[in-house]
């Protein structure tokens, strides 16, 4: 148990090192290189970026280990990869190739419609999506060492990520304001373990790092999420579905560093070429954020 706890601490700490950074979706070693050179603090290796998964339809699974390994070879920054919700064997495979972080992700087709992966059984760290505080604490209880919003992937529409981040902030503020004797009831309402509810009450924050993910397409989107309290940003389709990926990627990285400086943000937003086309939330049939509770 001591060894497992120690590993969990180290895994939470890797997420701390990623703070203030941008994690980019890449599908080839070439894209991974572009991402690294543009200032990504980590890359997410996947066969298809969310916008293409959405367009292709069908069952989306974890990526070919060979493709992930080629990306591991191409860059020196941490490499993450996605496993389907509940698919602990895909996660075992990713652990076997020494992935730095597993994203148990709603972007892929869920493999289990009831249970998430028991992440306490793994040595490699997991990041999971959460729409609200209860969901985040359930994932952390299962062993996630990093949380991200569950903004709608592959749409270029930021509205859901904003909604999740605001809800998380509001719930943390409300929980912090409650009396200690009310925390048992709060745990019940949040459907989350008492110990974690108590932690949030005391520290006024999640016990792990919380990033924004889903729908980030511009430097302004990234800075918006940072100003709302995200500790860093995932960018999926927003970069390699745009007109000038390297320039846009570098601009988003700088926007995350100087997210409060509107003058710098204005400069960064100039002349980036076409952003990804994007789909509005109301125009899509499949809400990936509804996968996993």
């Amino acid at each position, binding site marked *: 148990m001591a060894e497992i706890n*120690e590993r969990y*601490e*180290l*895994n939470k*700490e*890797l997420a*701390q*090192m*990623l*703070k*203030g*950074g941008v994690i980019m979706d890449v599908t080839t070693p070439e894209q991974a290189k572009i991402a*690294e*050179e543009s*200032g*990504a*603090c*980590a890359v997410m290796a996947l066969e298809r970026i969310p916008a293409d998964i959405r367009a292709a339809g069908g069952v989306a699974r974890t990526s070919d280990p060979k493709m992930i390994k080629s990306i*591991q070879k191409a860059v*020196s*920054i*941490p490499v993450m990869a996605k496993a389907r919700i509940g698919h602990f064997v895909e996660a075992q495979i990713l*652990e076997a190739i*020494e*992935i*730095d*972080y597993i994203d148990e992700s709603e972007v892929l087709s869920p493999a289990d419609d009831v249970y998430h992966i028991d992440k306490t059984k793994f*040595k*490699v*760290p997991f990041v999971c999506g959460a729409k609200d505080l209860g969901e985040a604490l359930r994932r952390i209880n299962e062993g996630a060492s990093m949380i991200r919003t569950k903004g709608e992937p592959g749409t270029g529409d930021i509205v859901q990520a904003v909604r999740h981040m605001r809800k998380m902030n509001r719930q943390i503020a409300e929980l912090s304001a409650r009396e200690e004797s009310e925390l048992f009831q709060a745990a019940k309402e949040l459907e989350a373990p008492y110990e974690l509810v108590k932690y949030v009450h005391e520290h006024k924050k999640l016990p792990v790092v919380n990033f924004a993910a889903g729908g980030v397409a511009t430097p302004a989107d990234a800075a918006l999420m940072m100003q709302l309290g995200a500790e860093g940003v995932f960018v999926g389709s927003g970069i390699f579905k745009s007109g000038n990926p390297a320039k846009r990627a*570098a601009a988003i*990285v*700088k926007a*995350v*560093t*100087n997210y409060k*400086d509107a003058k*710098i943000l204005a400069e960064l937003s100039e002349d980036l070429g076409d952003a990804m086309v994007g789909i509005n939330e109301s125009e899509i049939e499949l809400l990936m954020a509804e996968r996993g509770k």
Partner: protein
Amino acid sequence: MMRVAVLAVQGAFIEHERMLTGLGATVFEIRKKTDLEQDFDALVLPGGESTVMGKLLRELDLLEPLRKKIKSGMPVLATCAGLILLAEHISNDENVYFGTMPVTVKRNAYGRQLGSFEVEMEVKHVGKVPLRFIRAPFIEAAGEGVEILAKVDENIVAAQFRNQIALAFHPELTQSTDIHKYFLEHLTRA
């Protein structure tokens, strides 16, 4: 009161800020060139991704002014990625950033995240402290004038060169403030 600037372009800078504030220092962040207009007595280079920090240092025009300050004796505490920024050579990377410390470092020297670990160990001048290594580098070779402060197995993980302390591990992630205390009390007075 001591004013400490913490490089805050990416990484785990808030952890350093909390620790330094707790020890009574006044802390501010460096994110852009105009932040350098303030006076400060010491500099902290935090953990994070060295490729990201190095690139941002260059493109935000922070690299040269900070290098000048380090060269002219500004006390620096560098952890993990910070060590890579200070090193004169990186054995598995062509980049050099500040290059103010005559050491050769190896990036990701312990491999991927599965290679991250913790030990407790004696650090010279400081005493026994917990050392946390997260995808950490180590120092492969140290040049003249570099004092070795700690080794894990045969590898140098902490070193001091004049005004610069560089660590492969993360004291800012622990409960122990001893290294930061040493930095504030001894180095900044030298």
